[in-house]
Structure formats: C-alpha cells, structure tokens
C-alpha cells in the first residue's frame, strides 16, 4: 500500500515546515554555501521528483523538471523573503515548472497534429497516455490498463483541480499544505478537490459506459 509520506520523511517535512530550520539554512544558501545547497537538495529531491512525476509522464521528464526546480531555487534564493516556509516555496516552484512543461507538451502536440513529420513519432509527448512505455510508477502497478485510464482522466481535469488533487492524493499533502502552496484558502482547496473527484468519477463513468456498451 502507498505510504502518504514515509515516517522519517514526513517528520522532516513537518519539521521543515513549522520549525526554525529554515532560518538557519536560508542565510547559508543565500551566501552560496554549497553544503547548504546539497543538504536542501538531499532533503527535498524525492518530494520534488515525485511532485513532477505526478504531472509529467516519464521519469526522465520528471527528473529534468526536478533539476530545473533546484536550479531555480539556487538562482532565486536571494529573492526568497521567508513569507512562506521553504518547503512551500520549493513545492510552488515544482508545480509551476511541471505545469509549464505540460503546457509546452500540449502546444507541441497541437502542432504535431498538423505537421506530424516535424515532431516525429519518437517524441516523448506521444507517451502522454502511455505511462506503460516509459516506466512511470503508475505503470508499475499490476493493473496497467486501469493506471493508463486513470492517468488520462487526471490529465483531462482543469489545471487547478489537477494540482490540488495530485498534491493531496499522490503527494499525500494536507489541505493546509496545499492551500499554502497554491496560495488559496482551505475551503477553496476542499472545493477544488471535491470537484476534481466528481469530474474524475464522471469522466471515468462516461469512458466505461462507452467501453461496455
């Protein structure tokens, strides 16, 4: 069964979210301390990678996006004013980078629809609904067909619903944490997740009705 947040990691997360650790780490990071940067990367790399993997279809794309997240952290740490916890800020960057990458893929997909030879058949965006072919964790499951259907249904949700739902269901974050990341109120997040569940159920229901008829 899936662990929402592994115990040690979860403790670290809550610690970094609510303790004064940020106050020690951030000045060191701002001074360009390589050890501090390494510590931050090691502390957050799994969470950032998993967040990216919740949106992007392949491990390679998720790793590229995760690297870009830390590059952004490295470049922008001097602009970080501590209004949010460091973890919240890093999650925000991870979600933004993943969504930007997804939008880029969608634009390319539309372009490929008109001029397929320009994009080629081996382009990774062909894998949007094919996690099986690219070793996505969803494809590691026994029921690959269901995983693919679910992944496609998640991809068809409105962006804000998808972000809230993915962070809650796949990353295991609480409503409070998601509200901080998305800069929204807790009721707004509850509403987004509720609508995401309803829409997901409807999309799957329509899909299976067509399949079974």
């Amino acid at each position, binding site marked *: 069964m899936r662990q929402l947040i592994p115990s040690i990691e979860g403790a670290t997360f809550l610690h970094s979210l609510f303790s004064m650790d940020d106050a020690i780490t951030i000045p060191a990071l701002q001074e360009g301390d390589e050890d501090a940067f390494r510590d931050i990367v090691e502390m957050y790399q799994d969470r950032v990678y998993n967040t990216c993997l919740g949106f992007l279809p392949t491990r390679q794309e998720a*790793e590229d996006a995760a690297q870009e997240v830390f590059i952004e952290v490295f470049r922008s740490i001097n602009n970080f004013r501590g209004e949010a916890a460091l973890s919240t800020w890093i999650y925000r960057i991870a979600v933004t980078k993943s969504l930007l990458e997804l939008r880029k893929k969608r634009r390319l997909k539309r372009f490929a629809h008109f001029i397929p030879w320009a994009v080629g058949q081996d382009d990774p965006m062909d894998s949007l609904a094919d996690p099986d072919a690219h070793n996505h964790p969803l494809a590691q499951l026994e029921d690959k067909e269901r995983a693919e259907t679910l992944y496609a249904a998640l991809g068809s949700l409105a962006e804000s619903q998808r972000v809230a739902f993915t962070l809650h269901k796949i990353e295991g974050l609480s409503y409070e944490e998601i509200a901080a990341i998305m800069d929204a109120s807790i009721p707004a997040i509850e509403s987004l997740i509720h609508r995401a569940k309803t829409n997901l159920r409807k999309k799957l229901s329509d899909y299976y009705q067509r399949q079974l008829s």
Partner: protein
Amino acid sequence: MNNPAVEKEVEGTLGVLEKVQRAPASPFFYTRLKARLQAEHAGVRTPPRRLNIRLSLATLAGTLLLLINIYSLWHSTVQWHTASKETKLSTFADVYALTDDGY
C-alpha cells in the same frame, strides 16, 4: 451512474490511486544537478534537441511554400494583365473547351 458494471470499473480504477508508490529520485540526482549547474555557469549551452531542429525545418519549409505560392500568384496575375486581348480570349476558350477541335 446506475450501471453496476460501470460503477465497479470506476471504483476499481479510482482504487489504483491507493496503490501508487512514491518513487525515489536517482542516486545520481545531485551529481547530475551539479554538473548541469556548472555547465550553465560556464556558459556551456546544451545542444539543441532534435525536436527543435525539426520544428525549425518545418517552419522553414512552411515559409518557403508560402513564398512560392505568393510568387506564383503574382506571376500569373502579371502575365494575365500584360497579355493581349487575343491571347486572353484564346486562353479562356482553351480553359472552357470552346474550340472547334473534337466537335
């Protein structure tokens, strides 16, 4: 959603969410990240992806096609305006098969 078979499929698919495992990042994640940061710092540009090359070629091909079309249109318009009345009538007759040949 009244169909029990559909409902069962939907529940089964939503149940997949409960089985998703967290995937660890690669053990070489930091090494790769550091190499990328150093490369960027040194001003080394990553080579353009094959996809970008294809997109550039597609744009170039599209532009060429458009220019050829514009030229053809301009050329035929100029030819039509400079042609004599007799030539125009002859062309018109040829296009609409108004000649005596074959009748």
